[in-house]
């Protein structure tokens, strides 16, 4: 006789592994889907319908005549055709619906792509506008630099011109003074020379000779 532990081990080896959350529900009897139409709970509707039909036929509520035969055959044909042709028809209709959906999606996708492109363009335009601000600042600075340079160039020009004129005036004055000085010096020389008499000249020369004679023997 196997021990309880061994029996439990055997059972647990046969049982599938359940998750912890499913443990207790799996311990209760499993409800599996039964494919047998005659199993419990499957035949209720068929039995009810069959009983009603049998009662109606036996009580001659439904008289089994030619029309009933024709109607039953018609029903069977319709059912059979539905089984055979139905899937094809359903596939055709689903394909039709899918085509419409695809076409509309295509249109939608194209529009979305167009809108996304437009959004990207707008964003790029906004970015370029930001850069444009910097460019404007740079250009403004360049212009200001150019204006400053031009100003300084003009200032230099003015300075040069003024200096030229002033130098001219200075030159003019100095030239005038040089003329005057030269004239005065020449007049003075002339007057001095004119004021020297022959006797003074001779006396001066004799003096110079005497000085030279005194100097000569010392060497």
């Amino acid at each position, binding site marked *: 006789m196997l021990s309880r532990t061994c029996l439990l081990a055997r059972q647990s080896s046969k049982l599938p592994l359940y998750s912890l959350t499913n443990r207790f529900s799996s311990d209760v009897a499993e409800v599996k889907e039964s494919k047998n139409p005659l199993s419990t709970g499957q035949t209720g509707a068929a039995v009810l319908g069959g009983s009603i039909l049998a009662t109606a036929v036996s009580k001659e509520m439904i008289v089994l005549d030619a029309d009933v*035969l*024709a109607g039953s055959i018609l029903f069977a*044909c319709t059912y059979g055709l539905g089984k055979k042709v139905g899937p094809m028809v359903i596939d055709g*209709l689903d394909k039709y*619906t899918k085509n419409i959906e695809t076409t*509309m999606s295509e249109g939608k996708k194209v529009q979305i792509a167009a809108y996304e492109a437009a959004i990207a363009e707008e964003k790029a335009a906004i970015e370029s506008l930001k850069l444009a601000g910097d460019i404007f600042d740079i250009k403004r600075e360049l212009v200001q630099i150019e204006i400053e340079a031009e100003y300084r160039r003009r200032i230099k020009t003015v300075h040069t011109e003024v200096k030229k004129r002033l130098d001219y005036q200075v030159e003019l004055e100095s030239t005038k003074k040089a003329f005057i000085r030269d004239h005065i010096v020449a007049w003075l020389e002339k007057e001095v020379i004119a004021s020297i008499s022959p006797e003074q000249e001779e006396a001066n020369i004799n003096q110079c000779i005497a000085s030279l004679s005194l100097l000569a023997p010392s060497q």
Partner: protein
Amino acid sequence: MLSCSRIFLRQGLSTGARSLAAPIQLTSYIHTTHVNKDETVASGALIEAAKGMRVIPTRGQAAKEKLYGFVQDLCKQNLGEEGYRYFPFALGLFTTIGFCNVTNLLPYIEMPTQIIGCTVAMSTTLIAGLTIKCIAKHKLDFASFFFPPGAPIGLAPLLVPVETISFFSRAVSLGVRLGANLTAGHMILHIISDFGAQMLASGTVGGGIGGVLCTAALVPVCILEMAVAVVQAYVFCMLTTMYLNDAHELH
């Protein structure tokens, strides 16, 4: 005196079935009618059928759209652009006759399209209306119907009576074609099923075998009758559109 369309309506609607598209008042295009409760109910059926339509259709809606497209192609082919305004009429005609034909297959039910008198009255009224329309539009040129273009004038004494009879026999042939096909099919079905039922009820072995054979023979007949029901509706509608085009274009 009720017009044929109202009998049509009463019988068709008395089965309690809702047709897909029942602009029945458009089938009374030719008749002088006023809106009565049957037509109101039929119009209501159309409005009800059109409710809940989606952009991306369900299977049911897709089937309706396929039917709509089928009749639309038929009208475009036969009527052209100018006659396309008769498309609602053609759609109503096709769906109504198709519904009646298919419902006629059920046991214990008899629809107006099986009654030759009804179908002939309907076709006669149609042809009469077309003729009136043609005369109103083309006046004396309508007479060119009875002399085919390009035929030698010497054959006129022979051709004109033949063409006249051919023209007016359309009125009868259109209705008889529909009614006779359905009647014949229903009759074959009834004969075979009666034969089979009696054989099965005889209680003999031979009777049982015969009954089974008859039951087996019923299967292709049923399938054929289903096909005939739809095809006859299509043929009626197609011929009506062709006659409409003839009335408009004069050949």
